[in-house]
């Protein structure tokens, strides 16, 4: 059995430090994805490969909607509503999984690109692959907090892990907000 020894005041002080650490991590990730985005701009320029825009739009919508449910789940735990917290997380994980399967199982084979062929293939797989990896780790993170929430580990006052998972998930969404137009919309088809 876990015994909470930290006072609420100590917890709040720790929370501020945790938030700062999390956002520094997010900043470091921003540099990583920013570098990848710059490689797309440099190597593709004003062109892009021919890709399935309809599928990408559906997957993008799924990811944006997952952020809505994540926000709802986080709000629910802050209000002590564990039932809604779990429902929100279930939707988030389902939509995240849909996005992941859509990219890896549908988009990749449909693209007709190969990572080793040219700059289009290399950049396409680098961007979608690195992002998909983050979606996968996000889903794992969400599954852990879902189980912990189910076991009653979170209260309206103490739910830092949920906040961290939410910020991470939304960040993955923000990355896709820039990657989606860069891969599928901007430029003329090569």
């Amino acid at each position, binding site marked *: 059995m876990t015994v909470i020894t930290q006072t609420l*005041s100590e917890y*709040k*002080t720790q*929370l*501020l430090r945790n*938030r*700062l650490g999390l*956002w520094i991590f997010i900043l470091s990730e921003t540099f990583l994805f920013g570098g990848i985005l710059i490689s797309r701009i440099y190597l593709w320029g004003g062109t892009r490969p021919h890709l399935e*825009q309809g599928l990408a*739009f559906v997957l*993008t*919508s799924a990811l*944006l*909607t997952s*952020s*809505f449910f*994540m*926000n*709802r789940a986080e*709000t629910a735990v*802050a*209000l002590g509503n564990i039932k809604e917290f779990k429902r929100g997380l279930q939707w988030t994980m389902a939509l995240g999984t849909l996005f992941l399967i859509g990219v890896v199982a549908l988009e990749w084979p449909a693209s007709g690109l190969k990572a080793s062929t040219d700059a289009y293939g290399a950049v396409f797989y680098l961007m979608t692959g690195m992002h998909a990896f983050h979606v996968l780790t996000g889903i794992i993170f969400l599954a852990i907090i879902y189980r912990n929430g189910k076991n009653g580990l979170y209260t*309206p*006052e103490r739910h830092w892990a949920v906040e961290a998972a*939410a*910020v991470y998930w*939304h*960040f993955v*969404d*923000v990355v896709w*907000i*820039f990657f*989606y*137009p860069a891969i*599928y*919309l*901007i*430029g*003329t088809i090569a």
Partner: protein
Amino acid sequence: MDEKKKAQIYEKGIIVLIVLSVLTIGELWFALFGLTWWSILILVALTKAFLVVRDYMHIGRLFAGEEEY
């Protein structure tokens, strides 16, 4: 947290989702009509990112005091 504030938070989440959806449809519409202007699409992406960072990631908490959960 009272019911009014709770309703406000949920309502804000829905409004953000609607705005994001409209902007995403707008982006696709631009691309389908061949209007692939970097400046417009980047501006749309920046607007969407701003909304997510402010309203879903709650970046304001980083600068808030200990009272903010």
